[in-house]
């Protein structure tokens, strides 16, 4: 057993009172390929950000090859040999491929960047990742996502890592590139380089890694050698808790006439033929890991995306909305509670009242003028219906708690009078009490005959709230679960595309 190259003891990290990591002890051996597994929000990203110097832990110690270290920035971690490839690429779109590969420490002559040497270096590194077809002079923004990811890998290689962190590094790669990365990691392993590998694809973990660590709820659950646990065991380790009784009772499952029919929806490389039905009075969950096309599906239905292919029928009419304005005003009104309430949901510096009426001006106007009496009534209704706790409707919405802010977003969209409601992770980062209220509201709306499409990164919510769940994987619905079939085991294994486990 070789000595650990990276060793964390007692690491804790909190964000605004929310625990991201709690007392984590973790070690990775030199020359191993070490998988880090866990559900969304288990603390994987926080862990690697701490190792890579992006975040500083609140408590705890990091040792690199036995010596305690404390990194103030990614640059310092990089200098110590810890190189990280982030999920959000750390590449600069307007610079060339060669510039990007050598960005932190380009070859220099007389203090100036030696462009010829830089070009050669880029060619060598690109050859190592078998991307000879990429022109080092091309601006990065001209490359496809999968090529960019390979450039990111070449860039990481060029920094001569001792510890290489791959956070979802293969998520956008083609099968050929994935093989290249496998081979590369094998060669690095032989050189004694440690790789920390975060992936949601179980078969990749199986094929590559020698050691696995499972995280859950900000804690390190267990580390074990590959092969010592079955897939089913791993899934159970990742879940590890009971589903709490937070949820309102569900009606018995029954067949419903579809209000929304989607067939073979395609967009860029994010949606690859999504088909589903959504009936009146039904809550349809969207399952799967982050970034499998759930968000794009909602944006497409709401008219945000251009160049969407496939058929959509809403309320008996063919065709999808061409813009958010037409989506909310169509004969079957659609509302979208967006993913990021701070940028897409709210105008933070405006008042609660202004936010509440922002999507429903057609209902409060008399001719071209806003009727203040109607507006006040709408605001009052919204605040009562969602029990928004605020001093005054004139307070800036930024003064509210996260939960109440989210209620404002929901109230704003209910003011439109929608029949189809798209909810994109509406309970993210809010307290349990408010979550419960939102679950109840969803069921009430469904009982009133609205059709609800609900994406959540929390499996417990999908199980507790949904009549049916469509699990997305790689831009497709790979499994549909109804009623009793919706269990955590089924959701997790479908998310990882590893067949019916357990």
């Amino acid at each position: 057993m070789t000595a650990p190259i990276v060793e964390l003891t007692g690491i804790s990290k909190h964000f605004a009172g929310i625990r991201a990591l709690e007392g984590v002890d973790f070690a990775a051996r030199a020359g191993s390929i070490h998988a880090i597994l866990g559900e969304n929000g288990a603390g994987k990203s926080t862990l690697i950000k701490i190792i890579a110097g992006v975040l500083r832990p609140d408590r705890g110690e990091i040792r690199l090859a036995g010596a305690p270290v404390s990194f103030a920035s990614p640059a310092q971690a990089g200098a110590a040999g810890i190189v990280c490839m982030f999920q959000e690429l750390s590449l600069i779109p307007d610079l060339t491929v060669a510039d990007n590969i050598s960005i932190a420490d380009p070859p220099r002559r007389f203090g100036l960047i030696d462009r010829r040497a830089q070009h050669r270096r880029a060619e060598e590194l690109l050859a190592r990742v078998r991307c000879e077809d990429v022109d080092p002079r091309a601006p990065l923004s001209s490359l496809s996502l999968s090529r960019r990811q390979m450039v990111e890998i070449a860039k990481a290689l060029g920094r001569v890592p001792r510890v290489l962190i791959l956070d979802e590094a293969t998520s956008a790669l083609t099968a050929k590139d994935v093989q290249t990365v496998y081979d590369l990691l094998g060669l690095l392993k032989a050189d004694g380089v440690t790789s920390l590998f975060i992936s949601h694809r179980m078969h990749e973990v199986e094929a590559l890694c020698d050691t696995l660590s499972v995280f859950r709820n900000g804690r390190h659950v267990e580390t074990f050698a590959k092969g010592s646990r079955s897939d089913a065991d791993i899934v159970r380790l990742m879940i590890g808790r009971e589903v709490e009784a937070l949820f309102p009772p569900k009606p018995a499952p029954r067949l419903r006439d579809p209000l929304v029919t989607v067939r073979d929806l395609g967009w860029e490389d994010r949606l690859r033929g999504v088909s589903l039905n959504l009936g009146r009075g039904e809550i349809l969950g969207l399952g799967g890991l982050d970034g499998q096309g759930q968000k794009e599906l909602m944006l497409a239905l709401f008219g945000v995306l251009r160049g969407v292919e496939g058929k959509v029928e809403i309320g008996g009419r063919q065709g999808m909305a061409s813009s958010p304005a037409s989506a909310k005003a169509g004969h079957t009104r659609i509302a979208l509670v967006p993913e990021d309430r701070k940028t897409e949901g709210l105008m933070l510096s405006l008042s609660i009242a202004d936010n509440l009426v922002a999507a429903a001006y057609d209902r409060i106007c008399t001719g071209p003028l806003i009727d203040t009496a109607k507006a006040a009534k709408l605001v009052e209704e919204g605040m009562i219906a969602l029990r928004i706790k605020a001093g005054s409707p004139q307070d800036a919405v930024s003064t509210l708690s996260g939960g109440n802010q989210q209620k404002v977003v929901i109230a704003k969209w209910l003011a439109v009078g929608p029949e189809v409601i798209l909810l994109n992770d509406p309970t993210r980062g809010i307290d349990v009490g408010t979550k419960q209220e939102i679950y109840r509201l969803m069921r009430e709306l469904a009982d009133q005959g609205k059709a609800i499409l609900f994406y959540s990164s929390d499996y417990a919510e999908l199980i507790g709230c949904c009549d049916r769940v469509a699990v997305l994987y790689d831009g497709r619905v790979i499994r549909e679960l109804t009623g009793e079939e919706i269990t955590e085991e089924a959701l997790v294994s479908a998310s990882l595309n590893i067949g019916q486990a357990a």
Partner: protein
Amino acid sequence: MIWWLRQSWTFAGALVLFVALFTLYNLLHPRGFSTAVLVQNANESVAITLLAMAQTLPVLMGGLDLSVGAVMTLTSCIASELLHGGPVEILLGMAVTLAAGAMFGFANGLIVVYGRIQPIIATLATGAIAIGLALLIRPKPGGNVDDDLNWALTNTVWDFADTYGLADGGDATWLQPFVNIPVPLILLFGVVVLVWMPFKRCVTGRTVYAIGSAEGAAFMSGLPIQRAKIAAFTLAGFLAGCGGLYLAIQTASGNADMVQAGAYTLNSIAAVVLGGTSLLGGTGGLVASLVGAFILRVISFYFRILDIDPLLQPLVEGLVLLAAVSVGAIHALRIKNRLELFR
């Protein structure tokens, strides 16, 4: 070259526009294609060109510098006090002038980085300070600038050599291919080659582009963000100082004119956009702004030969600017996720 063209086709478009406008101008001019016309045009373009170059640096980082015109005014007032006497005194005066510009830019950089104030508002304030200082130095227009210097730097290479008795008074054989080139163009060329090219090729310069393109990714890549911001503003101040120095030499005087300073600042922004540098940052460059400034000047030259009411000049300049920037906005039509338009 292909990548370069594809990436900077707005710049290529600007270049074509300039060549077309300038050729047509010379065809229409009674003394077109003559050295005299070229020298005059060049002299009138230098200050705005240097200012557009200065403006380019903050714009590359996604900001604006509203103090460039004021710094030019301040440095021209300083120069109008210092550029006389013996050669050593004159050279020292030049150095002091340029250092003053650079210092002012350096101060802008410190305020933006450590004061965490947006460039546009920080430089609005420091610009007013610069004008205030200029008024203290030169309450009334005037000054004392060496006559030889004025003559040598605002004419052709031959005149320069003749003035200072270099290269057989300008008659040396090796100089003959160059004798008709206006000195101001050589100065601009010098600034590009000696200041911009090295800057663009060092890590600091590249970081300037990275900041404008994706500041988060620049930070994640461990680039020296603060240093680059301060350096960019310092260089902007230095280039504005170059503009002020030349203005003082050209007019043989200094004038703390607030209106002129404001007009120069706004024109510098227009020139940057015309050249194809994105106001969002990340793409473009000093050479592009040089072309943009030339276009802006050529348009104004037309009013002299075309017997058009000078009152129409701002209107036409505005229309040309609008047309040029509209071309740059076409890319928005290709964006597939419309949410990205707002990021």
